[in-house]
């Protein structure tokens, strides 16, 4: 509403405030697409802006982001920040499938390599696996470069209907699939396997809507609040088998030149943290083929995902295709 007021829009035909962090950004884009298809509005701006460095720091105050029902059962034990929550999930995966710190490190290093060609990235210096392993622990098993940045940043997407987009100067990027799902978290007594996220249940529905499968994607922008969330999504979105995320990233498949380049802007780990809308923006740049030195050749189809369902229990994702 503040944006509408600032722009002097008098008769706003659609508005939607999505509460929460990275599990809702892609759902917001999907809901905007619904509104456009329903004819509620012609053009909608979808944005996220946050001062997550100079303002409220999610992991820096000891104060939970959300006063959820489970907070009272965590805070007394000194457990209240996202690095702790995701380190807990990462350890469970390591114990069950033999995933190693080096696998997480491969993710951080591959994304940094992309960020070196991204002028918007906060972290552009070179980083090796040794650099990753030598960094201090934040919350074991996570070291410093397992954790995303804290960023003052903003991203805005302009969405309109396909026929209108085809009249515009830019190559249109089409939303071929949008899904959101989940609902259960560790405090609803419905999760039997913590190494499998809500994204695993949602992905088949998303792919069915878009008429695609994991092998069709040219790139994937996967929610990377921590390295582990990338690894588990590679499994849950079907790029590799459950438990094989570690060897998959070690093979170089997700790095530049690999079969499925992941987080081609550097992601939250190296570009900045804007709740996943920066992942959508990067997918759009890639599909328009305006990503410069980090461009994935002949990019036609991209997956972009929200937080896969830990903590809040919800998730969402988009399938984007380069328009004709």
């Amino acid at each position, binding site marked *: 509403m503040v944006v509408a007021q600032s722009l002097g829009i008098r008769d706003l035909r659609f508005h939607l405030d999505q509460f929460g962090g990275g599990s809702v950004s892609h759902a917001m884009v999907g809901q905007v697409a619904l509104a456009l298809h329903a004819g509620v509005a012609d053009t909608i701006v979808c944005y996220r802006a946050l001062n997550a460095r100079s303002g409220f720091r999610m992991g820096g105050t*000891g104060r939970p982001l959300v006063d959820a029902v489970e907070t*009272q*059962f965590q805070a007394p034990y000194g457990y209240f920040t996202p690095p702790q929550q995701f380190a807990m999930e990462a*350890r469970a995966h390591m114990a069950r499938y033999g995933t190693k710190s080096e696998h997480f490190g491969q993710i951080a290093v591959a994304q940094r390599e992309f960020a070196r060609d991204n002028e918007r990235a906060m972290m552009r210096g070179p980083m090796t696996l040794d650099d990753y392993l030598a960094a*201090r622990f934040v*919350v074991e098993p996570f070291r410093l470069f397992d954790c995303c940045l804290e960023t003052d940043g903003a991203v805005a997407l302009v969405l309109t209907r396909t026929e209108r987009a085809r009249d515009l100067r830019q190559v249109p990027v089409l939303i071929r699939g949008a899904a959101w799902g989940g609902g259960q978290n560790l405090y609803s007594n419905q*999760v039997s396997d913590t190494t499998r996220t809500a994204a695993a249940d949602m992905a088949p529905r998303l792919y069915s809507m878009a008429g695609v499968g994991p092998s069709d994607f040219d790139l994937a922008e996967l929610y990377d609040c921590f390295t582990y969330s990338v690894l588990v999504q590679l499994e849950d979105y079907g790029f590799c088998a459950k438990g094989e995320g570690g060897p998959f990233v070690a093979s170089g498949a997700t790095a530049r030149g690999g079969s499925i380049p992941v987080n081609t802007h550097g992601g939250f780990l190296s570009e900045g943290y804007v709740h996943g809308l920066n992942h959508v923006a990067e997918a759009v740049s890639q599909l328009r083929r305006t990503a410069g030195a980090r461009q994935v050749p002949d990019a036609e189809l991209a997956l972009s995902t929200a937080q896969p369902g830990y903590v809040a229990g919800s998730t969402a994702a988009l399938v984007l295709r380069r328009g004709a």
Partner: protein
Amino acid sequence: MIDELPEPTPDLDSQPFWDGLALGELRLQRCRACGALRWPARAICNRCASFDAEWVDCDGAGVVSSWIRTHQVFAPAYRDRVPYVVVRVELVAQGDIRLIGGWHANRDPVVGESVAPRFVRRASGAFVLDWEPDLAPNTARRLRS
């Protein structure tokens, strides 16, 4: 900012759970209609939609499903406490019930090991639920109504 160690903050649903810790009991809610355990407590069973529930005393036998060691000082109260270990425990009684708690042993936890509850009284007088290795993990486990 959290300057003091965070204390339990019971609400209407969770009060029996916190009260139980002071008595050395791990209390869980159980659906009277389908028998499913639920924790944290809530008004309705998310398996059978019944509102009819009772409190039962669980023996607290558990298994470490994961653990972490926090090095970063996220709040001033932890400046002199880092690094510290927190475990996540799945209850033997129902594996989809998972509790976060502190760790009492002079070694690291091991994922998959059997643990027993340890009821800890803090200087504030509040009781919290921590965990320690279970030295007799094969003893009979039961729920007391």
